């Protein structure tokens, strides 16, 4: 189709128009349902109902394309399970969905305010005993800390019970320490012309390390840009225990034992340095600690790493040479190394490799990403609004135990310390306020422990758009949440800045922004009124007006600015370390103490931490725990993404279940034969902490000796009442993973590398299902079969 025709057809410069029986509204889908990106979308409304959505061909980020999840938004928004009204039940009725009674918003706000007055303040608990829980649904990252800090006056918000903050935080900790920012691989997206931006060239090599960006679409990165770049000549290097679609296309692919990433990455660095393939000019001018790094890597010969990682030394050499010599190398990261105790070291090693090959701020390399307006809309939001006193700030859990927390590397409390507090009631954590997470279904390792810890909370409030196992099991007051098209919101993670308009309503569901304002004005009206915040639009405008580099008001952006566009995409030139764009003082260099990329990290050293990566085995592995390995002879990795689901979402959508009906564990054919497991049969996956069942998917794609199991499964079609809780424990792979044993920086837990055994399900061995084991029998650890008394907390086992 001709461009002119497309612009006419899709009403360039308009935000709303009529088309036959539909009103078409131009927006950006973000959350819910959860997503790391925010594609341009056209919502087709009929009689006030969002009938369907299509990709916006005029928004360059996705130019019309859309994933299956957005193409099924109607089912997401109008499902039977959708929450319509605030709900309340008595604490003793937890586990009984029918006990919830509809209340009004005013009653809900009064109930919360009275609880705080009578049960927190009235009983002498400090406000720090109120804590927030947040997930990764993206458009809840700033709202939860805003509420917790400024409405409730508590410093305690957590990524629920996500041991080791195992998503993005370990990675950003590594990159902020090394280079003072967070690099995102460059596929042209930092400028509106995308791949047609004059200075852009496609990556020579795309390095895919323990990720499947085609499915995961991490922050500011659309997976399909990889295929766009492949069409323009980019080649692939893929490191993964599983063969994915990209591995089969790769110039070099290596399957490695889960958890050995740092060893392999250090060996690649070794090859690049020993074979003199590094970028001398960049290293001399812009890197710090090269000689120390070279020395550190010297022991990691490809042979040594290959032995550790169960791979071929020559493949490590090939990959290293390819990365160093095939033009720019872009590395679109996934989350897998965040989910390892040794993950910070793995990332440091990979980021160091990109540094010595000169792959930052170059076209087709990796760009230090930031929100162009400087808006604080992340987990740090609301921390410095003056509501929290220094004494109150000091009561954030985890700051005392972990130096990187105390210097602000995570804006949140540390979840393993929260777990300890909940288990021991020391300090007492009385009331929880949860937005956008389904804690024991998805992100908490040792799901049974997480469930029991959450049951210790005296009063639990959760905001969600549908009934979840967490709400069914552990929550007293529920607030119904608006879908993306039912909310006014600002998208700025990272570029471009995007405004989304509320175009529809659903019963009494409200946006997270509206809840911030309602609760804020209820709990702390002086503060909210002093900032002029009475509506969601006021709230968003306040945030934009605080942003140092905003070029438009929120209202302008919302109305389509002068050019009819409801987004702002300022130019972002390359090589900003040469021009002073990366440092607050405007000097050339990177935003570190030395102004260089620190291969030897001064900040880690100053805090008494290891300044350079050091390889450590996973806590449970064939090498670190050989006796355990005899009993559980398979290496278990979890959490690989698929197209149908965003974590624990979409399970209620029949259209998704049509192509992905059940949880699956991938098993190598040779292992399956030895185990007597047939394809598609239900099998038990059992580790030292517990077990769950999934269907066997026998595939050559997984390396022998390793199995890969789905995460986030529950069954909305099944009974939601306790003990079943929609089957949330029956297939929950986190029955096997470990809580309260994060990596040395407090970052990263071993979700991706532990040990298990697998055996077919039979009626005999399925008599007591995990739901009963956890909810009725008090947890797997009460069963002598498992012989692993629950470890009370991190610290006590050191």
């Amino acid at each position, binding site marked *: 189709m001709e461009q002119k025709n497309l612009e006419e057809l899709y009403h360039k410069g308009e935000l709303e128009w009529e088309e036959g029986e539909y009103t078409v509204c131009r927006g950006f889908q973000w959350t819910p349902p959860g997503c790391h990106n925010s594609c341009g979308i056209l919502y087709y409304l009929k009689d006030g109902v969002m009938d369907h959505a299509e990709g916006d061909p005029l928004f360059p980020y996705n130019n019309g394309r859309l994933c299956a999840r957005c193409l099924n938004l109607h089912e997401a928004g109008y499902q039977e399970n959708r929450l319509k009204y605030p709900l309340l039940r008595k604490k003793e009725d937890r586990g009984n969905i029918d006990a919830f009674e509809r209340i009004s918003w005013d009653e809900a706000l009064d109930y919360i305010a009275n609880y705080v007055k009578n049960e927190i303040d009235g009983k002498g608990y400090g406000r720090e005993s109120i804590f927030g829980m947040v997930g990764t649904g993206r458009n809840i990252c700033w709202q939860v800390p805003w509420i917790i800090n400024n409405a409730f006056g508590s410093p305690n918000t957590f990524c629920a019970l996500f041991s080791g903050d195992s998503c993005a935080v370990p990675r950003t900790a590594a990159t902020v320490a090394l280079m003072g920012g967070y690099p995102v691989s460059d596929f042209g997206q930092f400028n509106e012309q995308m791949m047609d931006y004059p200075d852009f060239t496609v990556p020579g090599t795309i390095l895919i390390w323990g990720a499947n960006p085609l499915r995961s679409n991490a922050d500011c990165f659309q997976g399909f840009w990889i295929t766009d770049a492949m069409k323009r000549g980019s080649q692939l290097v893929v490191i993964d225990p599983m063969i994915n679609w990209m591995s089969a296309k790769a110039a070099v692919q290596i399957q490695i034992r889960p958890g050995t990433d740092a060893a392999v990455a250090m060996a690649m660095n070794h090859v690049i340095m020993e074979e003199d393939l590094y970028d001398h000019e960049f290293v001399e001018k812009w890197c710090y600690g090269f000689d120390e790094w070279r020395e550190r890597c010297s022991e990691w010969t490809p042979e040594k790493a290959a032995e550790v990682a169960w791979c071929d030394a020559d493949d490590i050499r090939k990959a290293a040479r390819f990365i160093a010599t095939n033009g720019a190398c872009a590395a679109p990261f996934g989350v897998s190394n965040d989910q390892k105790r040794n993950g910070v070291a793995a990332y440091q090693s990979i980021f160091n490799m990109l540094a010595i090959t000169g792959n930052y701020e170059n076209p087709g390399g990796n760009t230090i990403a930031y929100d162009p307006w400087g808006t604080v809309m992340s987990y740090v939001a609301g921390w410095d609004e003056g509501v929290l006193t220094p004494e109150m700030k000091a009561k954030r859990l985890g700051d005392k135990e972990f130096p990187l927390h105390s210097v602000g590397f995570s804006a949140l409390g540390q979840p393993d310390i929260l777990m300890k507090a909940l288990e021991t009631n020391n300090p007492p954590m009385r009331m929880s306020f949860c937005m956008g997470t389904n804690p024991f279904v998805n992100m908490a390792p040792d799901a049974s422990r997480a469930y029991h810890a959450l049951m210790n909370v005296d009063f639990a409030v959760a905001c969600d758009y549908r009934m979840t196992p967490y709400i069914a099991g552990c929550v007293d007051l529920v607030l119904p949440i608006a879908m993306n098209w039912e909310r006014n919101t600002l998208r700025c993670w990272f570029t471009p800045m995007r405004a989304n308009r509320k175009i529809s309503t659903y019963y009494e569901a409200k946006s997270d922004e509206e809840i911030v304002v309602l609760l804020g004005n209820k709990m702390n009206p002086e503060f909210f009124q002093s900032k002029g915040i009475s509506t969601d639009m006021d709230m968003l405008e306040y945030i934009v007006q605080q942003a140092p580099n905003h070029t438009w008001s929120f209202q302008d952006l919302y109305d389509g600015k002068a050019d009819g566009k409801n987004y702002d995409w300022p130019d972002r030139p390359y090589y900003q370390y040469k021009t002073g764009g990366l440092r607050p003082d405007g000097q050339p260099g990177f935003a570190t103490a030395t102004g260089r990329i620190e291969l030897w990290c001064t900040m880690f050293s100053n805090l008494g931490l290891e300044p350079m990566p050091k390889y450590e085995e996973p806590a449970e592995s064939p090498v670190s725990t050989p006796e355990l390995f005899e009993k559980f002879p398979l290496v278990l990795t979890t959490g690989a993404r698929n197209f149908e689901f965003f974590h624990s979402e979409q399970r209620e959508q029949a*259209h998704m279940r049509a192509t992905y009906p059940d949880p699956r564990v991938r098993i190598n054919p040779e292992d399956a034969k030895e185990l007597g497991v047939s394809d598609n049969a239900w099998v038990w996956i059992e580790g030292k902490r517990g077990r769950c069942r999934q269907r066997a998917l026998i595939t050559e794609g997984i390396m022998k000796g390793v199995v890969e199991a789905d995460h986030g499964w529950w069954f909305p079609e099944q009974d939601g009442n306790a003990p079943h809780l929609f089957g949330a424990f029956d297939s929950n792979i986190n029955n096997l993973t470990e809580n309260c044993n994060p990596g040395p920086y407090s970052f990263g837990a071993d979700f991706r590398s532990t040990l298990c055994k697998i055996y077919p399900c039979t009626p005999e061995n399925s008599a007591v299902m995990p739901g009963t084991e956890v909810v009725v029998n008090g947890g797997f650890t009460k069963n002598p079969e498992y012989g692993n008394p629950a470890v009370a907390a991190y610290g006590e086992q050191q």
Partner: protein
Amino acid sequence: MSKMGLFINYDICFGCHACEMACSQEKKLPAGEFGIKIAQYGPHKNINGDWEYTYLPIPTKLCDLCAERTEIGKLPSCVHHCEAACMEYGDMEELSKRLVEQPRSVVFSLD
């Protein structure tokens, strides 16, 4: 009017299901019904040692090439939304020329 068809560069199709869901949404199909369905072969190590991992979307008898959409100048919904941008809608004769240029591609002739 010339005969129209679908060209698919299946070398770059990564099996995202967008075509299936776009079709399902366009035609209001119940779950489990498909106007286009992705076939998958692999991952499998071929006898020559290369990894095979190939997807191919196949239009079903429910496909009418989105006649209502194309009439007003829009693309069929699967082509519009295809994440890999590996599908093209066009005149069969033109698409056949694309076949010659593009290894690992097919043209589907419908109705």
